[in-house]
């Protein structure tokens, strides 16, 4: 039973949850009235996209993308061929089965995306503080009302 359940639900479950989180984040970004809530929604949206990417790089039964038996193999090669000091040997490539390691490329992309996310969050929070200094509130409708009042006053 475990296997069929797994096949039906889990095969795309990660993607489903990523999409649900994206929708939650996007909804908060569009409809929340409080500026900080909007930004939390933005962060959730971004992490959901990252979850999507990372899910795309998962392989069943694969380990983390760090070659762990690297040291042992190097020794072998060194013993056989007297390569000096460093692990540059063509033979080693045959020992590595790509199915054993999860796909490193999405991880790299998402490191970038996380850093971009926090950079955006920082800039947005700075703008939020300036808005609070100018208008004394973080609620969008109150800010709009104050802008309108200021316009009418001339």
């Amino acid at each position, binding site marked *: 039973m475990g296997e069929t359940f797994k096949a039906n639900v*889990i*095969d*795309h*479950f*990660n*993607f*489903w949850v990523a*999409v*649900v989180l*994206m*929708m939650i984040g*996007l*909804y908060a970004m*569009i*409809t929340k009235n409080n500026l900080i809530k909007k930004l939390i929604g933005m962060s959730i949206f971004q992490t959901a996209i990252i979850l999507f990417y990372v*899910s*795309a*790089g*998962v*392989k*069943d*039964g*694969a380990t*983390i*993308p*760090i*070659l*762990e038996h*690297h040291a042992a193999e190097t020794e072998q090669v060194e013993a056989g061929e007297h390569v000096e000091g*460093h*692990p*540059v040997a*063509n033979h*080693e*490539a045959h020992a*590595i089965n*790509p*199915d054993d*390691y999860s*796909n*490193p*490329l*999405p*991880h*790299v*992309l998402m*490191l*970038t995306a996380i*850093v*971009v996310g*926090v*950079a955006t969050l*920082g*800039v947005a*929070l*700075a*703008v939020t*503080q*300036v808005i609070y*200094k100018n208008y004394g509130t973080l609620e969008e409708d109150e800010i709009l009302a104050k802008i309108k009042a200021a316009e009418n006053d001339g």
Partner: protein
Amino acid sequence: MKWVGLIAVLFTGGLLLSAMDDFPNWGDAHSPANASPVSQYFIEKTIEDSGVPNMVTAVLADYRSYDTMFETVVVLIAGIAIMAILRVGNQIPRGARPAPVSAPASVNDDHQDIIIGTTCRLLIPVLQLFAFYVIAHGHHSPGGGFQGGVVLGTSFILAAIAKGLDPALERLPETRYVKIAFVGVVIYSAFGVACLLLGENFLDYGVLSVLLPTIDAAEARSHSMLGVEVGVAFTVSAIMFAIYANLASKGELEGGL
């Protein structure tokens, strides 16, 4: 607004889910993304190209190092942007100048919160040491310039939270952290320019082996990766502290939380 948002979100969600049955199965090792020659190449040839067992580090700092350079620039921009936004028309904040203080040991001076003070004194050196480990050991274990840089920046943030912003800023004043942040990007791009000057494409580290005759191209790659990670760590640690210091004090760099 709520309804518009809800409709937009449901539409987006429906769009995203509509392609779901076309997706490769979760965890499928032979999906287009996982079985592509690009991904295979990274897994199989990283050791050969640079001898770095952590493929993520190798891809980050070597194959796609151009991206990573701009990522570092994004971090730099965030710090500069926050400083530029929060200083609305005022002069240099008082805290930004290196303070001419006579009491260098102010982290230890405060006897009011002895638990926090002691914990910080114990924790901060360990954090910083760990940060250096993470930066330097990124070739062999999870970590690298970003993670190490953030941990290093966090140690200053911890000092600032525990003891107030001023003692932390005495140790890392604004003129200094801005300089460190810029120097980080300079280090990174200098590696690329060195390759350029030696006649290869930008960031083609292999050619740097001519500078150190005892190493070959693969080792040159490996060492250059460490070099650019150090540059990344410079920028990231300085900017993380800068972001906190400016946001916590509304850009005035005094008081803090």
